[in-house]
């Protein structure tokens, strides 16, 4: 490109919708006022009225379309390329799901519609509850939580209610140092104190540390299995025994369920409470950061405390919603949000479960694990593993964590540089710098919906970047080059935060 080094997207500088349009332009045409005129002051006295107009954009429909279509082109997305963001299960989102979720009978159903006239929706929720119970091996499901971390909060509030009901006060919650940030954050938000557990040399929980810390103050242990290293904790039965022995509950962070569907069930491992990330294992489009959905499943002893309302089936087969006003009479922890949860997500995940069926779900997990191990093997074959060795273990489940430590020392490029250079190759980078205990971590989750060709291409790209770095580390350090903007100054952004457009 001899003439201008800038791509058209780079050339076009960011202007917000507030900087476009002109006074008087608009898209909306308000329906006519068809009722008799009334005195404005009578309708709404002056003192309740807004004094200063909200300075919303003044733009026509064509401008809005151009603006947002233009912005969309500044995003990388799963439909456009490989997105091996570890821990996030970026599997394909079948387009059927968007179609069925948009059917007016689902999309335009009011949440307070009488149950008799929402039987289809309630049956769908009931069926989903049943399916999630079977998949998790825990019989009681509440679909309400809005995402994984909301499910975690529910789980700890359930734990609290369970202990309180038994007259116990326990204020500590255990979580391994590999745990996802939402786990410790939830511990605090639920009013507990975090106690960290060490990771053993095999990448699992350090059992001695667990035994030492599992005392009578411990309310719960929060665990992911396979954990965030992509490893199945082989001591899970012993862990469960220890935790239950201490009178605590065992919480399953379901973010990694995609490794074990139909193969191993949290309930059978001894977990009391599990949350699902429907947006991960059960394929919601991630929407740029939501919506998601985080149903929970629990064992019999936790069931009395579940949030309201759940879907119930009555004798005659009809479905109803639990009453949620008479909270005082039940042991329920109450509501976690409005209405019944993210029904739109339920529709999609239910469609997914019915599409795949028992075999298909098992197959999905098998293939997810196969793909991860294959990619790992390819990286070994290409010599990438020398600079980027597997942090723990030999094989992995559905994802694996590489250490960028040797790369950093030998090639003088950091994991961040590698990630940024991947952008020029058209790949979304893996999760980086997590889990925290792995130096310069790279967490790679290919998922089952990627082809072997894609895995090969990704491995090649990594090898190529390392080769390039061996010749000239500046290439990676200066990357990316071809993206709409290049490396951004995050420090400046946080120092003097500008978080809205200045107007006028």
């Amino acid at each position, binding site marked *: 490109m001899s003439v201008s080094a800038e791509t058209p997207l780079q050339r076009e500088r*960011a202007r917000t919708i507030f900087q476009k349009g002109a006074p008087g332009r608009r898209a909306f045409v308000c329906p006519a006022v068809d009722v008799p005129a009334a005195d404005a002051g009578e309708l709404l006295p002056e003192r309740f009225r807004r004094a200063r107009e*909200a300075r919303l954009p003044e733009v026509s429909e064509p401008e809005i379309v151009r603006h947002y279509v233009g912005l969309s082109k500044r995003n990388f997305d799963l439909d456009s390329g490989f997105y091996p963001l570890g821990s996030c299960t970026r599997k394909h989102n079948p387009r059927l799901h968007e179609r069925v979720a948009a059917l007016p009978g689902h999309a335009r159903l*009011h949440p307070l519609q009488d149950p008799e006239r929402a039987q289809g929706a309630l049956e769908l929720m009931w069926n989903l509850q049943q399916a999630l119970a079977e998949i998790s091996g825990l019989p009681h499901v509440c679909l309400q939580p809005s995402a994984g971390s909301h499910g975690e909060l529910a789980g700890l509030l359930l734990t609290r209610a369970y202990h309180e009901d038994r007259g116990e006060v326990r204020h500590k919650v255990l979580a391994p140092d590999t745990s996802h940030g939402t786990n410790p954050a939830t511990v605090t938000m639920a009013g507990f104190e*975090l106690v960290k557990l060490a990771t053993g040399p095999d990448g699992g929980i350090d059992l001695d540390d667990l035994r030492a810390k599992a005392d009578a103050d411990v309310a719960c242990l929060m665990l992911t299995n396979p954990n965030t290293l992509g490893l199945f904790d082989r001591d899970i039965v012993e862990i469960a025994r220890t935790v239950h022995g201490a009178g605590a509950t065992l919480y399953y962070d379901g973010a990694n369920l995609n490794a074990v569907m139909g193969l191993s069930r949290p309930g059978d491992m001894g977990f009391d409470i599990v949350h699902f990330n429907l947006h991960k294992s059960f394929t919601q489009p991630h929407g740029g950061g939501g919506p998601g959905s985080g149903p929970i499943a629990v064992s019999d002893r936790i069931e009395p405390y579940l949030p309201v309302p759940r879907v119930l089936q009555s004798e005659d087969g009809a479905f109803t919603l639990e009453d949620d006003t008479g909270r005082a009479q039940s042991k329920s922890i109450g509501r976690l949000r409005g209405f019944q949860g993210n029904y739109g997500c339920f529709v999609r995940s239910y469609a997914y479960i019915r599409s795949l069926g028992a075999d298909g*779900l098992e197959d999905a997990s098998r293939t997810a694990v196969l793909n991860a191990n294959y990619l790992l093997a390819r990286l070994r074959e290409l010599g990438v593993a020398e600079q980027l060795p597997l942090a723990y273990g030999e*094989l992995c489940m559905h994802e694996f964590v590489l250490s960028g430590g040797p790369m950093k020392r030998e090639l003088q490029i950091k994991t961040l540089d590698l990630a940024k250079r991947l952008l020029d190759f058209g790949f979304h980078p893996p999760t980086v710098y997590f889990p925290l205990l792995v130096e310069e971590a790279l967490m790679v989750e290919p998922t089952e919906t990627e082809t072997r060709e894609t895995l090969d291409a990704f491995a090649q790209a990594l090898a190529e970047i390392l080769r390039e770095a061996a010749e000239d580390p500046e290439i990676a350090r200066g990357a990316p080059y071809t993206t*709409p903007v290049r490396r951004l*100054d995050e420090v400046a952004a946080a120092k003097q935060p500008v978080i809205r457009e200045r*107007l006028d």
Partner: protein
Amino acid sequence: MLAAIGVGSLQEIFDRQIPGEVRLERPLALPEGMGEQDVYEHLRALAARNTSVEEELSFLGAGMYDHYVPALVDMLTERSEFLTPYTPYQPEISQGGLQVMFEYQTAISELTGLPVSNASVYEGPSAVAAAAYLAKLHNGRRRLVVSAGLHPHSLHTLRTYAHGYGMEVVEVPVTGAGARDGACVTDAEAWAQAIAAGAAETSAAIFAQPNFYGAVEDAAALGAAARAACEPGGEPVVIAQVDPITLGILASPGECGVDVAVGEGQALGNRLDFGGPSFGLFAAREQYLRRMPGRIAGETADVDGRRGFVLTLQTREQHIRREKATSNICTAQALNALAGVVYLSWLGRRGLVELGELLLARTHYARETLAALPGVEKLHGQPVVREFAVRLDADVPAVRRRCAQAGVNAGADLQALTGREQDRGGLLVAITERRSRADIDRLAEVLGAAVAAERAGEPTVLA
């Protein structure tokens, strides 16, 4: 692929990793898989057993509303580039999503009249609980004084959360019903007393505008009273749960001296979806910026000086700060917030006001028309914007059933939602721009007949 891995079978990978005792040795007890066409037909059959707002004349609201969603919202939210990325952890390839967040924050800031907005939280009721948690982080106190005028789901959610993070919830009643001004609003005296009673420990004072009964509160007075009840410097955080669609005409939280405004965003370009997903808006005064929950996009520049956007102030967030985070929220509602800002752009500066005026006029007309029916009276005489409550001199569930048989969903049964004895007979009626005068007249006709029939003890005809 197995050869490359160096295993003899796929099963070997599992056998070497999952202990035998926790392996599931049977197939899942789930139905067999189906092809796309069959799944479509199944989901369509389920949808057909729901009566959506397309199939009846619906006046249901009570937290979610049947506003018109313009076609361009669907088109944009269905674009792969918005639909299928995840959180913009890699800003260089996520400028679209990040700029949308920045624009959303600007729009919410303008709507609320508050300088700081995050990029959304889950939804309305949990946003109230999140705001209370912010108050706790801010002043470390343990009492939450809350108006009973909040949506019952918000009250319940607040109690659930507060029990977790160890705060006490003190509920202030609304004044009694009656077709007069000042009925069904937060009891001003009780409000001031409740705050003053534990002033040193009162962390936040929370009310809704309009409140659950549709009544416009004197927001400025509530805020002022809350502050006045405390020692200077010891004021509680004043939190308002607002309805964004009313903010074209109602005084903004910023104008009313509110510290933190939260609310359900569904009315802004999001469909009903039987209750979710939608988004919760969350805006505040500058001083709360570093205690906000959730994602915030900030402006910056790239190495070549191009304007760009990043997730900023991430040291508030769980993935960086873990147990010290200001919230545990991670996956949130980015796509719903996108719909929100696109909708607001579509509505535009004048459109928001015009829509507000239309709703005001029609809601007023509807209230007067219904209140003129025998056996129907206003529950209160406060101004209302797009929802109002009446009291029926008849059994509400029975009247609603009669109306439903005539193809009209007359609104929400107040008492079924609040569980309060004082709300018996209450019907909460929502009016959107999709409900014309003719629709309202039809409601009056059907409701009038239903109330009359119920009072006369006529038997119900089964459809």
